[in-house]
Structure formats: C-alpha cells, structure tokens
C-alpha cells in the first residue's frame, strides 16, 4: 500500500515539476516563435488575444482541441492514433535523466548519454508510423525523408557526443556537467567547438526544424507526415516537435555549456554575488538562449534541398566529428583539457 502511495506521489511530483512546466514552456515557445520570427520580418506577431497577445497559445490549444479528429478511410486506425503518442513520449521521457540543477534530476543514470541517444531516436518511429499509417503519398514521402534524415544525423550527433564523453570520462549527465566546472572557458564548447556546432545543427535536423524541415516541406509535400492529422492528434505532433526543441536546447546546454554552472565561476573579482553561484537560473538562461537560436535560425535560412541535407550529414559532419574526436583524445592525452575535472 505504501509503495503504491509513494508511486502515486512520485507521479504527481513528476507531473508538477517536469510535465506541467514543459507543457507551459511549449505553449509559450510557440508564442515566442511567432513573436520572434515576426520581429525578424519587421512584423509584430500575435497581439490580439489578451495583453500583447499573451493568451494566444491558449486560444490555439482550445481551437485545436475543439476540432474534429479525422480518420482517413484507408488509414490504419490503430497505428494512426498511436503514432502521435510515440512521437511525444520520448520527448518527455528523456527529461528523466536531464539534470536541471545540482542533483535536480529524476534518475541519476550512469549511462545517461546512452539513454538520451536511445530515446531521442525513438521519436522518429512516431513520424514514420504516422506517415505510413495515413496511407497517403505525401505523408509517406515525408516519413521517408524524415527517417533517412534522422538516421544520418543521429550518427553525427552521436559522434559529437563521443567527444564530450572523451573529455568528461563519463556517461552520467551530472558528471559531465560537473567535469566542466571552472567558468565559461572551461565549458566544452571551446575545446569541442566544431563538435558543438555540429551537435546543434544535427539537433536542428533531428527535430525536423528549418532549415532541415524536409519531413514537413510545406512547399513540396504539403505538410509531410502529419498531412492527414487534425485537431487533437495534430496538436500532439505539434507538442512533440516543440518539446523536442526544448529538449535539444537543454542537451546542448548540458553537454557543451556547463548545464547549471555559472559562466563566471572563476571570476574572483565579482565577489560573492549570486552571479558566481551555480543554480537552476543559469540552466534556464542557457536553455532560453538555445531555444532562441532555434527560432533565429528558422527565421533566417531557407530549406535545404534534400540531397544537400544528405551530403552535409554524411560528407561533412561525420568526417569532421571523426577527426575532432582524435583531436579531443589528443587534448586529454597531452593534458590540455584535464579529464573529468
């Protein structure tokens, strides 16, 4: 009995401290996206619903939920409905091992990085199944593109994380963050600069965001894999995409930008100010920074051509990461970066 109560209590806490903030963040991320991209195009974005348009996300959610869920006649019902869930579950599941502050993590896994890689590649199953189950050529094409793209960029993503593992000497996310302590210049973005860039660009590709939104490709294949989805089931895909973006921003912050560590840790002249303390605040600041970059990049670059995406992944990113893995190993070997410290 006690065990059951404890389990329920745990579920409530997970819901309260991870799911609810995530969903709220997604809601306001969509709002921020429209505002930021609007501003970059000299527009002002949504401003009608509530002050400054702040209630816009809720209006959108209500609209989506009130709409009819359309089941295409030829679709595979079961897979069609389960696909959005398969897309969103990994996006939330990875947060189990993501430390948002010192010790603030649900599961302190020793193989955290593996768990992250395994789950984040699960998300593509939702997309493939959605495309296949809708039984429409556009959806299928979108799903195929997405699968090919995610598989190729997963390799670059994994290789760039290998560099992090070499320097940190651990697969535990908390240990990786702690290994970066010492201030801005001790974070791994500096010794692993190419890997950091490749990781972030691959993250764009993994989340199917512009300029790698091949899976959606509005101008060529209408909306790709979710062309047949409507109402609530579409909302779930939407949620998954944005949750994935938030997740990737969090991972970038943890692997390359010292997670919750303060950038001014080593700056003695700042005295005892809170700026030098590592706290969840710094994690959120970095998270928001990378989330902003997602929007910034979307506002700037047009979509890649499909063959160019493949070329970039296989012929540019993977060789560079392989070479830089050797460089990272040399860094550790020569003591330029002290392993795990």
């Amino acid at each position, binding site marked *: 009995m006690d065990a059951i109560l404890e389990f329920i209590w745990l579920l409530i806490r997970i819901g309260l401290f991870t799911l609810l903030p995530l969903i709220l963040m997604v809601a306001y991320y969509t709002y921020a996206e429209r505002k930021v991209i609007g501003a*970059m195009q*000299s*527009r*002002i974005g949504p401003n009608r619903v509530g002050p400054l348009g702040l209630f816009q996300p809720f209006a959108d959610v209500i609209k989506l939920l009130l709409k009819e869920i359309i089941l295409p006649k030829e679709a595979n019902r079961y897979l069609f409905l389960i696909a959005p869930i398969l897309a969103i579950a990994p996006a939330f599941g990875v947060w189990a091992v993501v430390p948002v502050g010192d010790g603030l993590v649900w599961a302190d896994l020793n193989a955290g990085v593996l768990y992250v890689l395994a789950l984040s590649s699960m998300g593509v199953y939702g997309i493939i199944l959605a495309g296949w189950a809708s039984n429409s050529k556009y959806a299928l094409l979108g799903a195929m593109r997405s699968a090919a793209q995610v598989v190729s960029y997963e390799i670059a993503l994994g290789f760039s994380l290998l560099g992090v593992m070499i320097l940190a000497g651990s697969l535990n996310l908390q240990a990786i963050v702690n290994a970066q302590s010492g201030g801005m210049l001790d974070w791994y973005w500096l010794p692993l600069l190419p890997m950091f860039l490749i990781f972030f660009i691959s993250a764009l590709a993994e989340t199917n965001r512009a300029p790698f939104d091949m899976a959606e490709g509005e101008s060529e294949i209408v909306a790709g894999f979710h062309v047949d989805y409507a109402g609530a089931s579409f909302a779930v895909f939407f949620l998954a995409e944005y949750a994935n973006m938030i997740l990737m921003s969090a991972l970038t912050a943890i692997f390359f930008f010292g997670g919750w560590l303060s950038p001014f840790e080593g700056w003695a002249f700042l005295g005892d100010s809170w700026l030098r303390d590592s706290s969840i605040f710094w994690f959120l600041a970095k998270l928001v920074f990378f989330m902003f970059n997602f929007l910034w990049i979307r506002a700037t670059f047009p979509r890649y051509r499909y063959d160019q995406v493949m070329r970039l992944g296989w012929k540019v990113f993977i060789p560079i990461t392989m070479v830089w893995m050797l460089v990272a190993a040399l860094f550790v070997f020569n003591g330029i970066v002290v392993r795990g410290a």
Partner: protein
Amino acid sequence: MNKIIRYFKSLLMIELFQGLSVTIKHMFKPKVTVFYPEEKIPKSNRFRGIPALRRYTNGEERCIGCKLCEAVCPALAISIDSEMRSDGSRRTTLYEIDLFKCIFCGFCEESCPVDSIVLTDFADYHMEDPKESVLNKQQLLALGDRFEQSISKNRQQDAAYR
C-alpha cells in the same frame, strides 16, 4: 585558390553568420505593421472595391438597361433583364452581380454610358453565407446611396486625367 577560399568560407559558415546578423538587426528595427481595423493605409481614388449602382440627384436610377456592362464583363459576373417601365423608358428588372465571379476589373464602369455602375473604394465587406455573394439591384442601389459622396469625390479628383 578560389576553390580553397570558398571551401573555408563554407566550412566557417561565414555567409550563414552574415545572414543571422541581418535577421537579428531586423529584430530591433521599428515594425511596419498597420493595425488594420483601427488603422488604414490611404487608398487611391482609382481604388476598385465593391460595385454599386448610382442614381441621379433627383433619385432616378441612372441605369438604362443597355447591357453594355453585361457584355463587357470578362468574368460574366453581371446578369441583366430589362422591361419597359410605365413611363415608356427602358429599365432593368433584374440586375445582379456575383461577387465571387467579379474580378474588380472596372470594365463595367468604363463601358457604362451613364456612369451608372461604378466600383466604390469600399473593400472591407464580408458575407456569412455563400448565397449572399450575389448582389441584387436593391443592394447595389443601396450601396450606391451609401457611398455616393466618396464615389463622386473620387470621380471628380480623377476627372482631369481621363
């Protein structure tokens, strides 16, 4: 040599960062949005909006049922029927414009010998039922009455250039 320079340029993503700097600069520039229903941009006096039928100042409708507009309309949006009125003049019994067909080209206005059919500068209308897209004679005349001032003002301003 050029090839090598190009290679390094793309490797260092110089052009991509240039692009990013353009967008971030625009983010802080003043916005050009017009708050539409509250604010409107000025319209030309040749603006072609919803069609209307005009009347003479004594209240008599101008249209003489010559069907020139019906003949010239490239979208076949106008349908006209006419009859002899009790005073012996020819008048339309049916004058309809389908707004879904009309392309607002203004040919009907050009062709009309008595300046009866005109395009007003009013374009902010909507309909709640697809059937409402067909304007009948009464509606067109009412539109003409409603916008007579702006119609005649615009025609006067433009007269010198015609």
